[in-house]
Structure formats: C-alpha cells, structure tokens
C-alpha cells in the first residue's frame, strides 16, 4: 500500500509541482491552484480516521508522503496539514478548509499572539500555534503579516480581538515534536533528491576527458553522501514510528538530530561536486540545498535535540546506553 500511495503522490507532484512552480511561488505567485489539486487528491486527510472522511492511516504509513513533500520542495504545507488535521480529528475540533502550518508562538503585550517566524506562513491558510499554555487554530487572513527570512515564511501577529475569536484546541499537545517530525521527514526526502541529482551530475559532467564520477576522490565524496542520505532516511523513519498518528518525542529527537546533521554534510558535498553551476539561481540544486539548511534550522537544530536525548539518558535512565538506543529504534 505504501508504494501505491507514494507512487500516486509522486506522480501528482511530478505533474503539478515542477521546479518552475516552486520558483514562481517563492517569487510571490499564489499557491492556490497547487493546493486545490492536493486537496482534491485527498492526501491532506491521510491521517484522518475513515469515519471522519480521511484515509485512516497511521504515522508510519505516511512517512513516504511526508518525505516526498521534501523531495519535491512542495511550496505549501502539505506535511504540516496532514499532521495538523490528524491532531484536530483526534480532539474533535472541526477541520477548516485550506492548509495549516504548524508553529510555535509567543504571547505578547495586550494579549496578542506572535509567530516569528511561521514556516509556510506566507502560503498557508491557517496556523496551528503552540502558545505555551494553549494551542490555537488561527486564520492567517486575520493576522498582521511581515515577510519572514525564507520566502515562503512570514512573521505573523494576531491582536487580542482576533485571539478571542480564535478556536482553542483542547488538551496539551507536543507541537514541537510534530514540527520536528515533519521537518525530519522532509529533510530525508530533500537529502535523497540532492544525493540522486548529484550522482547524476557526476555521471554526466565531463572533465579531463571522462565523467568526473570516474575519479576516486569524487566517488568517495558520493559514497559519504550516500551514507548520510540513507542514515537520515532511516532516522526519519524512526521519527515517524508510532502506533497511531502522534509522534513519540524521543524518536523524533533521533530523527531531527540525525537528519539535521546529514543536511549540512550533504549540502556541502553536493555543492562541492557541482562546482559553480550548482551555485546559480537558474540551476535546480539550490531549491533543495537551501531547504536543507532551512529545515535543519526548523523546529530545533541538532544540538537542541541532542540535549533532549541527553537529558533522557543522563537524568532519567540508569544502566546501558543500549537500552535508550533500543527504545528509540525498536519497532512495535
């Protein structure tokens, strides 16, 4: 089933989410048409129970879909929306039409709430925000928006009045783990794409009368890239391993830390192998390597999640380190 599902999304993205579309949305074009196509395909409801109109899948089932969002640099928050709708369905909150970005938030003076930055804040319809004591579902149309650093992001602020109107999501939720789970899965897809296109380039680009991939130095760099890309893919799968639709924080810690580490290595090696052409705006490599850095920084860099794992191991556990390794990798 995994393969059928991911083949269908891959085909859709191949047709509807080509690099020129990604560039156009980054340059300011509305992603509405792409979002409508994705919405019609049903993928955004993959984790919603069947009796609520979704596909009723569990988190491990959708790992390939989340990874594809990274591999195709999808310029709308499809991965976030899948996870957000699962959460809303779980707590019985009606799911609004449109895409939902996940974000952390701070409460400012006078009861205002601020997301600075909100990933996908410029292109999403809603934000599911973790404002410390409460989780809020906020319409972006009502926010005061400023551009973020990445072209798809935004700095968003809602007034006290807008917050008063907003829907509060009952219960406490680890939105940080949700964001990190999505970022890790998207990183794994972007890493694999970056690796594959670098491999292809090394086989095509000729210097000194032969493809540069014939040189041992390049071969070894590609081998190291492969190692990181495949370890990161395994780590992202670990992050998506859960019995239901809610990621487990310690597994997510492994996933986000390892994929973030791989992002640096793979981005650097891909540019080293591509040379100057890979450094141009015109060439597609930048669509993925810029995201490797973006998603490494999103929802906590590797050091943040190292501390999460370290505190678990040092402060809350006794005995062998192996037992924490097992707890984060065993499949139940």
């Amino acid at each position: 089933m995994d393969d059928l599902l991911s083949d269908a999304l891959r085909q859709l993205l191949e047709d509807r989410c080509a690099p020129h579309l990604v560039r156009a949305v980054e340059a300011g074009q509305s992603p509405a048409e792409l979002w409508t196509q994705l919405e019609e395909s049903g993928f955004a409801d993959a984790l919603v129970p069947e009796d609520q109109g979704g596909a009723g899948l569990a988190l491990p089932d959708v790992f390939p879909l989340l990874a594809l969002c990274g591999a195709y640099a999808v310029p709308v928050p499809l991965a976030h929306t899948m996870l957000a709708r699962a959460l809303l369905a779980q707590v019985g909150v009606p799911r609004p039409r449109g895409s939902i970005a996940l974000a952390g938030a701070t409460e400012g003076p006078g009861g205002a709430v601020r997301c600075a930055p909100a990933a996908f804040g410029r292109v999403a319809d809603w934000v599911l925000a973790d404002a410390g004591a409460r989780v809020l579902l906020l319409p972006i149309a009502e926010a005061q928006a400023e551009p973020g650093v990445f072209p798809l992001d935004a700095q968003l602020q809602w007034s006290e009045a807008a917050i008063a109107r907003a829907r509060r999501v009952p219960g406490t939720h680890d939105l940080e783990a949700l964001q990190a789970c999505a970022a890790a899965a998207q990183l794994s897809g972007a890493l694999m794409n970056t690796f594959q296109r670098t491999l292809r380039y090394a086989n095509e680009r000729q210097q000194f009368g032969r493809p540069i991939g014939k040189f041992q130095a390049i071969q070894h760099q590609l081998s190291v890239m492969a190692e990181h890309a495949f370890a990161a893919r395994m780590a992202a799968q670990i992050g998506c391993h859960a019995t239901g639709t809610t990621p487990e924080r310690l597994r997510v810690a492994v996933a986000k830390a390892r994929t973030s580490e791989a992002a640096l290595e793979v981005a650097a090696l891909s540019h080293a192998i591509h040379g100057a052409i890979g450094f141009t705006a015109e060439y597609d490599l930048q669509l993925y390597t810029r995201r490797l850095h973006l998603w490494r920084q999103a929802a906590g860099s590797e050091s943040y999640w190292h501390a999460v794992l370290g505190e678990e191991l040092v402060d809350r556990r006794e005995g062998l380190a192996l037992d924490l390794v097992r707890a984060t990798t065993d499949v139940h």
Partner: protein
Amino acid sequence: MIAAHPETFDDTFPHPGARRVSALDSLSLTALPPEAEALRAELRTFLQEAVANIPARVRARSWGGYDAGLSRELGRRGFLGLTLPKEYGGGGRTAFDRYVVVEELLNFGAPVGSHWIAERQSAPLILKYGTEAQKRFHIPAVCRGEMYFCIGMSEPNAGSDLASVRTRATRNDKGWLLQGQKIWTTNAHNCHYMIALVRSSGTPEDRHKGLSQVIVDLKLPGVTVRPITDLSGDSHFCEVFFDDVQLGEDAVLGCEGDGWEQVMSELAFERSGPERLFSSIVLFDEWLSWIRTPQGRTPESVRLAGRIIAQLAPLRAMSVAVTGKLAKGESPVVEAALVKDLGTGVEQSIPALIADDLFRRPGADMPLELLRTLDYVTQAAPSYSLRGGTRDILRGMIARGLGLR
C-alpha cells in the same frame, strides 16, 4: 586483523549497476522478532554476573579479549552457532536471534575473542562450502565454544590488494604442501585452525583465478606463529609462517579455485553486525556513569551523550535492517559497506569526543578506570576502520554499488 577488500583496484568484478541504488532505498525500519528478543533477558542475567569483576578497560576489548572458559560456557548455554543447523550442533535459529545475542555480548564488553571469528565466519563458511566430513568435524566443536579459528588473508605484500597473495599450496602425493606467510592474523596464537587464502595454481598475475582456501591445523610441523605487539601493548594479531607444511588431500575448502568467491561472500557477512557500531560502547557507558554524578554532569556532557545516541540509533536500525536482508537470504554487500563505514566513524569519534569533554575541565577529579578505558580505546580506535576492509575500500564498493564503476 582481517584483510581488506580488493575491489578498489580491480575492475573485473561484476558491475551491479544502478539497480543497487533502489535496493539501498529499501532499507526499512525492521522489527526484531519476539523470539529473538526473548533471548536478551536470559543472556543479560548471565552476563551481569560473568563480567561483574572485569574492569572496564579490559571489557573495552570485547571481541579483542580472550576467555576460553567464557566461550565454552556460552556454548554450553546454547548462545553460539545460533544460525547453524541443529544437526551440526547449532541452534537452527535466525540471523535476528544471533543479532540480539551479539549486541548484548558487545554492550557488556564480554571477552568473546576466543570463539568470535570461528562462530561468526569460519563455521558458516564451512557450512556453505565444506565437505560433509569437514562440517561434522568442525562445526559442532565451534558451537560448543571449543574450537577456534583465525583467518589467513593478509600477507606482507597483499593487504587491500588481496588477490596478490603469494602463499602457495602445491599438490603432492600426500595432499598439499603449504609454503608462505600470513600477517595481521587476529588471535592466531590462541587458535586451533586457520582458513587461509592461498594460491593453488597459476601465478599472482592470474589474480582471482587459481586461489583456494585451505583449512590449516596450526599444530602441524612447519607452522610458526609469532604474536605482534600493537601500539597499546596488546598482542592480538600475529605473523604466521608456513615452512613446507604438509596438508592432507581434504584440506581444501570446497572446490579448488573457488577461494576468491568464498572470500567475497564471507566479507559481506562480517561488515554490518553490531560489532561495527559498539566497539567504543564500554567506554561510552563508563563515561555515562560519571556524567550521571553531580561531579561529572555538565550541560555540554549531556548534549554530547545525546549526540552519540542520535548517531548510534539510526545505525542500529540500519544494522538490524541489513540483518533482515541476510535472514531473507539476500546478499546486501553495498548496504553492509555503508553501515560499516558510517559505524566505524562513529565508533572512532567516541573516544575523541569523550576526551575533549573530560579534558576541558583540567584538574577535575575523574575516576581512574574511566581514564584508563579512554586511553585504551583511543589507542585501539584506528583499527576499527582497518579490520574488515579499510574506509577507502568500502567507499570504493559503495561507489561501485552506485554505478560509478
């Protein structure tokens, strides 16, 4: 120490092409079956007692440490030869079962070097290629933890370029006459037998053709074993000289001339196990005990502990996934190379990172046993990426799997 894979220097090996890349893609999170996990508690109870009085600096040697008594006891308890057929004294169980057992042995730092190579490589090799008589003679004794093997691959002038071995077996009226020399042979001074890669016909220029593996009884006249002391002061590897050693007709493993193929299949099995991620784990656990105390704990140490877990966890999942492929009868050569190159890199980084964590606080009162363990592992670490194929060889294999060669 085991000789490296020669592929880097030789392009006549079959070209797996781009299909290998998608095979790598299929390395998926794999469950250890409950019957494999069921072995863990029993073994752990035994090990907690068995290694209780062995200091960490000795346990840090793990499969470089020797204790024939422990090997026999593990054999008696049915923990050796788990994947070998019951009719030859094995457990008749799966590669997953063996994975769990090896993972526990290494994490406790049990000195398993006596039986290690015999159980991991030699007995499975004899099972695959040996005659019925060879199987009946060797495999049950290996499963009992009583018969130890070493591997004769490297020679003074044949390291990574393994196909250039010069040790020669010449046919005579009594069988085969062995002449030559092996080196870096792990544990030869404690072993009963060697499986040696030798030239049985042709010349070194014939490369892969004319090579055979022979089983050599190391007590035979003409065999001289001389331990080599390594930089840490240990003597775990040896020079082995063969001065007209007379072998019987039955010494050849499988068919004469099949040595190269046998060696290649053997190396795939030894590259992806838990021994490629846990070589520094005793040091890590010893350091962990200290940073769990108020004197040892700092925010930097906590982050470092998490960093090492974040690297070990995906590697362990990859190693289990490769075990799953082995259990299905596949030969995941490239995946195994990938796990080993990454895994040994993490293993080697552990002593370096821990040293920095400890010595950024000069004057702190640190446990002596921790410092001794760190000293040993720091010295041993270079060997992690030499044994079983060097980094350069492994990366060459991965490149071949990617279709670059």
